[in-house]
């Protein structure tokens, strides 16, 4: 599904020097994989995730998503591809505080120009699937951390992406809440969704079927 070849991410510093966040990354992820990217702080895990999620465009190398050469696409084309194929789950949930749970789920669909009635049906299905129908009119500040992350995951999968990218999805949660989220990921993966997560937790990594170690920007 995903192939990276020679991907590098560099930030310029003063006096002509450079800081390498990622160096010569080669990576293959097959469809249906549940991959955990691990490594110490500053290893480049989140940067790699954002490159995979097509949020970051400042990298070099080759990136194939299916048959599509992402490295040859313009930013707008990448955004369209991302909207279609990828869902993102953030450590800090990143729900929109002034929107209800329903509206937070609706937002990604509205940006994909899905029709109103179809959106309503998809949101209703997702609320039901995640058993949060009763919370649809609540605001994020009225939910617990675990419930917010649940909504974050629901938002990530509402448009049926092929790939979910999760950046420390349980980082701000209690262990029991974290377990719930990881079990959910496991379930989604068993239903065919490819998942790539960044995690510090060995326990969370164990939910996946593959671990990639990063150190100082290199895959080790």
């Amino acid at each position, binding site marked *: 599904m995903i192939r990276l070849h020679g991907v590098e991410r560099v930030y310029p510093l003063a006096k002509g020097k450079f800081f390498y966040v990622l160096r010569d990354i080669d990576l293959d992820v097959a469809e249906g994989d549940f991959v955990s990217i691990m490594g110490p702080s500053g290893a480049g895990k989140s940067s790699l995730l954002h490159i995979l999620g097509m949020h970051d465009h400042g990298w070099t190398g080759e990136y194939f998503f299916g048959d599509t050469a992402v490295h040859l696409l313009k930013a707008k084309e990448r955004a369209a591809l991302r909207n279609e194929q990828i869902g993102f789950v953030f450590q800090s949930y990143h729900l929109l505080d002034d929107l209800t749970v329903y509206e937070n789920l609706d*937002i990604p669909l509205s940006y994909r120009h899905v029709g109103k009635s179809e959106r309503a049906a998809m949101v209703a299905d997702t609320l039901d699937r995640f058993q949060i129908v009763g919370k649809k009119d609540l605001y994020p500040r009225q939910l617990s951390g675990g419930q917010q992350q649940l909504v974050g995951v629901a938002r990530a999968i509402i448009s049926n992406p092929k790939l979910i990218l999760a950046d420390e999805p349980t980082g701000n949660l209690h262990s029991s809440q974290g377990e719930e989220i990881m079990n959910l990921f496991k379930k989604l993966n068993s239903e065919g969704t490819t998942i790539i997560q960044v995690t510090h937790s060995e326990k969370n990594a164990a939910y996946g079927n593959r671990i990639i170690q990063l150190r100082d920007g290199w895959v080790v």
Partner: protein
Amino acid sequence: MLKEIRFALRSLAKSPAFTLIAIATLALAIGANTAVLSLVNALLIRPLPYRAPQRLVLLLQHFKAQNLERIPVSPPEFIDYESRAQSFERLGAFGYANFNLANSNKPERIAGAVVTAGVFPLLGVAPVQGRFFEPEECKPGRNDVVIISERLWRQKFSRDAQIVGTKLLLDGKSFTVVGVMPEGFDFPLQLFNLGAGGQFGGRADIWQPLAFTDKELQVRYSRSYFIVGRLKPGTSLAQAQAEIETINDQMRREHSDNYSQDGSFGGDVFSLKELAVAGMRPALLILLGAVVLVLLIGCANLTTMLLARAASREREMAIRVALGAGPMRVLKQVLTESVLLALLGGMVGLLLAVWGVDLLKHIGASTVPRLREVNLDLRVLAMTFGTAVGTGILFGLVPGIACAKPELTESLKEGGRSSTQGRRRNRLRSALVVSEVALALVLLTSAALLMKSFVRLQNASPGFDPHNVLTMEVSLPELRYPDNTTIVRFSDEAQRRIAALPGVQFAAVTTILPLAGTNSDSSFAIEGRTNDRNAPAPDEEKREVSANYFRAIGTPLIRGRFFTVADNADAQPVIIINQALAKKYWPNQDAVGKRIVMGGMSSHPTWITIVGVVGDIKHTGLDAEPKPEMYVPFAQDPYKSMIFTVRSGQDPRLLASAIRSQIQAIDPAQPVANIRTFEQVIADSVAPRRLSVLLLGVFAGAAVILASVGIYGVISFLVVQRTYEIGVRMALGAQRADVLRLVIGRALKLVGVGTAVGLFLAFFGTRALQALLYRVSAFDAPTFLLVSLILGIVALAASYLPALRATRADPMIALSQNA
């Protein structure tokens, strides 16, 4: 306190853009306020330049049945009032006059007045040189003395210390200067609304004793003088009014031949101040309202800016409080900053006001003469200072209170996001922008209505064709023109010479020019209609015109004929009337051929035959309906004061010099005054209105600029505040268009609510303008719609840049900053 001021200065210096915009906003608002306050102070509040002016009154008469109000008195009537009234310390009579001053260069017409000996003493202003008039000098043959103004003394005599005793040649006669009035002395004020301030009435520079002739003292119905009086201490206006009514009753009984007995004749006592200001008050109050709105919008702008600034300083304030600062201390710091801003803005505003007032005087003093008196005196400076400090406290209070009670926990944590207090402040900021838009809409709507009305007024037909017509005034001195024959001879010769000039199509004279601010009327009787002694005789406006007058000004002939040169003093008396008079008195008949007699019916009436009916002319104003008017041949009833009207096939101003030469070829000592095209006469008649429209337009423009700055500021701040949210949305798939729609949509929502509120307020507020509007409703829908559209476009423009900035938000940075 010094510490707070030092810190405030440092803090403002660190944010130069914010400080400059704040000062500019305040300067605009306070400057406009100061300028208009100066106007209001000088024109409405400041006492008239006489001793104890609150006790000065004018006494005028009315004939209610004939719709004649505020008309002058006759000499016998003045004598009656003067001898019988007990409510006044003193009464004096005066009339407008012009003098032809002969000097070495060329003759010059000087505006002046004739006054009885009591006038200057009762005004309570002493001459700086010489003396008042003596009562003996107010007799025919003894009134060859004058008092001059300081301005004339300065301009013509270089403040010659020996001026008293100097001989002046006025109207071909020698007069001795006996006194000089002080600088700034002005009487009679041109805004007494007595109808003589325009034509033949400039600012008086020469005063001559008023000496009633024996003939004048016999004639009760020839009213050309006004009465000024000083109430006795403790006497009210109402008491004086009651006494005057008693005297009028006595006059009616004692001279029943001269007054109808139906009670329509009477007198009115007016406060001098009230007469001077009444005409200006509505416009000035509207202007004052406008600048108050501008000030409020400015304050709202400043409050939103300071609220935004407070939000960015939340952490600083939280630290201060955590270190022990009490709420009052924090409030004091914020208020110091806002008052400092206001004082700086006030100082710049004062400069703007000085320039603004100078500009106003430059463009408006010729049409609103008292504008000359406008300046920034101590009272206005104090009001400005008070306004500055008041606005500083006003717009600083809300953010000050917000800063004084920060949410410590949220603010001291790194990256606290959407707190309850933050949401409250956002709502407050939004509410302020909505108010700004609403107020700007009210102001803009008012200005637009006045502009539309003014355009309609300017396009209103005056009843004649003013294009390519030159007018000029000539006042013949009695010494050289003692009788009608000499006057007519001069007039005929002048018209003949002028008509012979290349480019001249028609040359004529009239005694009263339309839209020039003067009037004259006469009572008459209609053949075959016996007047009831108890009912008032018809009384309508009357002018004296030469044969080519109507051709010269382009008024159409409806029935009958124009005058000809054969309608002279030896011919049968004839008269031309306008359509309004024909409709009023001969509604279903042909008025041509009917006969009237001037004054009352007598045993041997001199019948005057109506020979023509002309179109109606707007005489008192472009916005006034034409009144019934009658015209007699100048040759049959000449006057020494006449106005030449000359129609040309080209720019008539090119003829001015040639016409003056022709007149002075007849009489080298005869000055020609007030040379204006007829278009200029019309423009002058609407000049006060034009000034109001201009000023209101400027203030409305300022309000829109301020409101758009407010919108820009709020939306910019919104974008900064919502950078994280925009980043998340972009991470979730929002495209550039979606972000633009989000930001601009928010702006349009605020402006939409503001517009709705503003329309509601304008609906009631513009009622105050109805009296000033000409053929435009105060609820003119197209104007309201246009203004709403303009504000919408302004909002779009103001929010576009911040919206564009929002599209450039990097979701990566936004997300990482708030992780």
